[in-house]
């Protein structure tokens, strides 16, 4: 059964992308097609998860080449679980994007290219999860990165080009490093098949192993945004359209985390770099969350919490024990869902309030109680308030850390608690300002005008230069608003739309978008309800990872290579 199903999560989206490109002129058909494809991928992934959990790992040789030569797709509990979570989230985001596209027309997102690219992205993510050899993992990364370049710079506004360039150059560097690492691995062992590498890498001298391990770790660390390599993320993510940021935040960094888990457990089980990973995890958590506390823009704040919480997963990996890995796997699943939901909520907030700058928002809880609930529950989940799944994941990791018992592990446990508290502070600030305070506490005129000016600035930053006043200074939206407030209006300022009501009423929330967000928020709650079975699954996946034998024997059969 696995032989038939395993290639489908890669094949279906690719074929769907081709189809979606062919029917680009018929938006309704295109939307239906991509939704159907993603539903099918989700169904296949769920089936794969059940099979992998019941019967253990399985492998397919694509193209019928004998095992060490050809390309192998491997489905074990970890990759199947990742597939399920990823395709669920991708489906939710797609529905959200369809809702947004239907409401906005094709102004913000040129839809004809959005759907094919999104499907290619899903194909790349699936390929990376299923890859049984290092080079196929590289190809999977490249597919998803190529799609992500297009999605991130969709529409080609100045802000997106600027953010996109950072992202592209950093991703390229990491890809080249990964490729060079593959070259060295091949030179040292004569294979790129991961199951074979699991055996052969152990026979290498320790120094060589350490070099290869650190090269792979740096390459994946960039993709996963682990601390010294994380600065690119908050710079590039917030500029993209809401659904794109959501799917990036949920999936792309987690593919990097998955690759780290895979290489650390399967290829380099000795844990030679565990200490380095520990400190990297601590720095990721603390630096990330301190960045989040300093931000005043909702999306940037979320981007920083994204970086910060990657630290929890790295912590679990660095522990290297089955308990630590189980915690990391559970946390990855939880965090994909939660972060995607929060970024979608940020998209809704932007529609409702006209901006994501927290200082300019206010009274959202009164204006849209549903939106407030949709923000509050995932935000508390992110901070790790019991009994939500974030709490369970953190608890599992902290318990694993205490069980490990070393001084570094205890430091990380403390760091994890502090990070959790600071996360609560960061989301709490957003809650009190954007949602809870009454609208008139945020200067209403300023809010509206700044939002309007902000919107124009987002579209065409050159406008800002055009509307300089007498002393020839480039002015910011806030200064604009302030000048009008203090009644020093000039001729240019009259042109900016001042009506507060107009901006507020400008963007009602379409049902599809709210529905998709609510569904994902419900999923995060469901993760709490189903935490028992899920954690059991994560436990079994972690045991497989530590054991390594299931993976290797799924590829080579019973006899070792």
């Amino acid at each position, binding site marked *: 059964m696995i032989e038939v199903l395993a290639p489908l999560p890669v094949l279906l989206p690719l074929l769907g992308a081709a189809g979606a490109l062919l029917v680009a002129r018929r938006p309704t058909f295109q939307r239906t097609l991509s939704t159907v494809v993603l539903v099918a991928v989700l169904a296949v992934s769920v089936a794969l998860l059940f099979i992998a959990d019941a019967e253990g790992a399985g492998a397919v040789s694509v193209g019928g080449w004998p095992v060490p030569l050809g390309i192998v797709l491997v489905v074990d509990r970890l990759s199947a679980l990742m597939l399920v979570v990823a395709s669920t989230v991708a489906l939710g985001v797609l529905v959200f994007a369809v809702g947004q596209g239907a409401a906005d027309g094709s102004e913000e997102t040129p839809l004809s290219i959005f759907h094919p690219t999104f499907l290619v992205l899903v194909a790349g993510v699936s390929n990376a999860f299923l890859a049984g050899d290092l*080079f196929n993992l590289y*190809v999977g990364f*490249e597919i998803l990165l*190529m799609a992500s*370049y*297009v999605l991130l*710079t969709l529409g*080609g*506004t*100045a802000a997106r*080009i*600027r*953010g*996109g*360039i*950072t992202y*592209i*150059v950093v991703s*390229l*560097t990491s*890809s*080249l490093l990964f*490729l*060079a690492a*593959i*070259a*060295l691995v*091949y*030179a040292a062992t004569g294979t*790129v098949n991961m199951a074979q590498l699991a055996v052969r890498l152990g026979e290498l001298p320790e120094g060589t192993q350490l070099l290869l391990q650190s090269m792979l770790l740096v390459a994946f660390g960039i993709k996963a945004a682990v601390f010294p390599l994380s600065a690119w993320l908050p*710079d590039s993510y*917030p500029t993209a359209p809401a659904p794109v940021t959501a799917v990036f935040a949920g999936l792309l960094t987690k593919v990097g985390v998955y690759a780290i888990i895979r290489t650390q457990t399967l290829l380099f089980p000795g844990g030679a770099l565990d200490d380095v990973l520990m400190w990297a995890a601590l720095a990721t958590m603390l630096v990330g969350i301190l960045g989040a506390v*300093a*931000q*005043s*823009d909702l999306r*940037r704040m979320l981007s920083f919490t994204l970086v910060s919480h990657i630290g929890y997963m790295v912590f679990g990996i660095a522990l290297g024990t089955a308990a630590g890995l189980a915690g990391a796997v559970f946390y990855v699943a939880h965090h994909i869902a939660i972060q995607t939901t929060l970024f979608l909520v940020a998209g809704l907030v932007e529609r409702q309030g006209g901006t994501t700058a927290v*200082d300019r928002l206010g009274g959202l809880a009164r204006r849209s109680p549903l939106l407030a609930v949709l923000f509050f529950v995932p935000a508390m989940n992110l901070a790790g308030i019991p009994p939500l799944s974030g709490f369970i994941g953190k608890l599992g990791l902290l318990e694993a850390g205490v069980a490990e018992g070393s001084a570094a592990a205890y430091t990380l446990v403390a760091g994890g608690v502090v990070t959790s508290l600071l996360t609560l502070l960061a989301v709490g600030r957003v809650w009190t*300002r954007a949602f809870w305070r009454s609208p008139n*506490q*945020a*200067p209403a005129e300023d809010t509206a005008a700044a939002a309007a000016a902000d919107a124009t600035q987002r579209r065409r930053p*050159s406008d800002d230069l055009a509307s300089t006043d007498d002393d020839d*200074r*480039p*002015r*910011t*939206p*806030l*200064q604009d608003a*302030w000048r009008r407030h*203090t009644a020093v209006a000039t001729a240019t300022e009259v042109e900016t739309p001042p009506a507060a009501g107009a901006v507020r009423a400008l963007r009602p929330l379409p049902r599809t978008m709210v529905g998709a967000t609510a569904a994902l928020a419900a999923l995060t709650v469901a993760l709490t309800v189903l935490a028992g079975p899920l954690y059991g699954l994560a436990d079994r996946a972690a045991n497989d990872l530590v054991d390594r034998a299931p993976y290797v024997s799924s590829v080579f059969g019973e006899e070792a290579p």
Partner: protein
Amino acid sequence: MTPTIVLPVMIGGLYAAGVYLLLDRSLTRVLLGFLLLGNATNLLLLSTGGPAGLAPILGYSDAEDINDPLPQALILTAIVITFGVSAFLLAIIHRSWRLARNEVVGTDEEDRRVAARRATDADELDPDDLAPEDRAAMHADSLPADLEELADDVDVPAGRGAP
């Protein structure tokens, strides 16, 4: 067969030049740097195939004499990927030029705002409590109008804005 010194030297040289160009602010140089790095990596892959040998075609030569075909397959894939990414980068450079008549990497505005922000947030103060001349300064989380002044405490790159 004797090991060759030419390949390692070339690979090293290409990596060095590539990294140097990649760190430039001009996007065209970044693209050139990426191309050099890509070629360096391809050469590295090529050199993993071991010393040069005959074409890896069955029946054409003995198995002992042929070259390892796998790195070549990997290189072909890598070349295609590099090609695609370069084309996309060129499109981005073109777009950047169309937008701003400029093709350097821009500075992040929000970073500047955070860097320039004072300890107190704007909405925690009541504007009526302030002297009129201080009111503008209250919005310290917005970008200061005078970029020159900002350049003293924040690292504003010379590429844009500053003379």
